[in-house]
């Protein structure tokens, strides 16, 4: 479904993405992890062109995402994107957040968009909050609305950029549950996350990145139990025993 071919990106001198070549299949759930600054957020932001690339190609179902003359808006409407900071529109109600894209660009009729949004809100367990303002919701609820909003254009692919990193610990579970639901429906997911539990239980594959490179690709079981690359071993040791470095 997504194909990275020799992708490179620089921020000034800094090599943010280095020779990335990778294929993500339809229906696959891929978790991208790695230390901060490893390029994992940059990587998924290149998939819907929130970030440019310097060289190489990224294709979605054969279409060159960064090619000239690509209708980037049509492309983006087929890719759901969920941000770390939710980025709900604070001047719109929860429902209006979810109907904005279908009404503004999808050409949906109001009644139809409304019904679809209510279905999605029901799916994330927040139909009763349809008329609330985003500011009246908890972080976990806001992120679930953000997921419903991203689903409104019925994208076949969803990207998550650290969806639970800005949440209080007790709200992480509700968001991960919604994401697991999507996986059960056979949707393709690329998730940047530090939630190793989610990676272990839900992901089909884990990509480990450091310094702009994908250093390891493995099934979750393999990755967690037998990491191959020294950096991956170190990373797993660091997140399992945070005090080890100090000792």
């Amino acid at each position, binding site marked *: 479904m997504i194909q990275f071919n020799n992708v490179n990106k620089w921020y000034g001198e800094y090599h943010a993405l280095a020779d990335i070549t990778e294929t993500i299949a339809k229906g696959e759930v891929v978790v991208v992890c790695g230390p*901060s600054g490893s390029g994992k*957020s940059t990587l998924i932001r290149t998939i*819907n062109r*929130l970030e440019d690339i310097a060289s190489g190609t990224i294709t979605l179902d054969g279409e060159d995402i960064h090619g000239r003359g690509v209708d980037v*808006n*049509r*492309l*983006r*409407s*087929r*890719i759901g*994107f969920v*941000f*770390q*900071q*939710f*980025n*709900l*529109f*604070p*001047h719109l109600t929860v429902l209006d957040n979810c109907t*904005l*894209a279908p009404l*503004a*660009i999808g050409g949906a009729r109001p009644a139809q968009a409304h019904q679809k949004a209510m279905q999605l809100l029901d799916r994330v367990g927040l139909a009763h909050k349809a008329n609330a*303002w*985003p*500011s*009246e*919701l*908890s*972080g976990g609820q*806001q992120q679930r609305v953000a997921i419903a*909003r*991203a689903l*409104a*254009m019925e994208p076949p692919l969803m990207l998550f*950029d*650290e969806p639970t*990193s*800005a949440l*209080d610990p007790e709200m992480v579970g509700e968001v991960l549950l919604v994401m697991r639901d999507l996986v059960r429906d056979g949707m393709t997911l690329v998730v940047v996350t530090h939630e190793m539990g989610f990676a272990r239980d839900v992901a089909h594959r884990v990509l480990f990145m450091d310094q702009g490179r994908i250093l390891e690709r493995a099934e979750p079981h393999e990755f967690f139990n037998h990491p191959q690359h020294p950096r991956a071993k170190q990373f797993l040791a660091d997140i399992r025993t945070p005090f080890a470095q100090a000792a």
Partner: protein
Amino acid sequence: MLELIQTYWLYFLVGQYPDGPLGGVAVTVLLAALALMLAMPIGLLLGLARTSTVAALRRPVSALVYLVRGIPLLLVVFWTYFFLPTVTGVKTGQFTTMLIALVVFDGVYLAEIVRAGIQSVPRGQYEAARALGLDHRRAMARVILPQALRSMLPSLVNQFVSTIKATSLGYIIGLTETSFIATQINSQVFTKPAQVYLLLSLTYFVLCFGLSRFAFMLERRLARRDLPRVARSPGSPTASTAPTA
């Protein structure tokens, strides 16, 4: 003072109208209202150009903004009054002259307010709109500008208030606005300058204060209708605005 008001109130409010040109408070209010109505769309367009990523749009507009901001309104009025007719070949009336000067001046200041308003909306809002597939125009119209307007409101009121006061500069090109009329009254009465100019000051004060209060009410109503500004305070656990890692 009462006698002063009784004799001159109509002259003060509308000038010699209907026997002569409209003047007084009516001209001040009309001029300010027209100037703002015409300057708003211009300010919006200039402000959008100022935040554009297209340098060919941004640079000339920025230059214009810096130029007009760098000279007093008085000189803009003089330029319009003395210079414009030599270009167009048509002698512009005092009202139109003042209106043009105010629209240019306000347009530029409003552009800066619009720019600041747009830039006060967190980057993530624009990204979220674009990520949904909205193009630049729709992202601005549906997501960024509605939020920007809210933070622009206090500055807008400031600008409106200063526009009302700026109409008094019409005096120097002989426009029969309130200050001009007051001076006329003063030279007719001759013995009561303090009272005349006190009344003039009061008139401006009532206009400006009224507008400020109205805007304050409006702001409160907007704030009540939706609470998002609370959520936008930094450090709040529900903050939807912190920069993405």
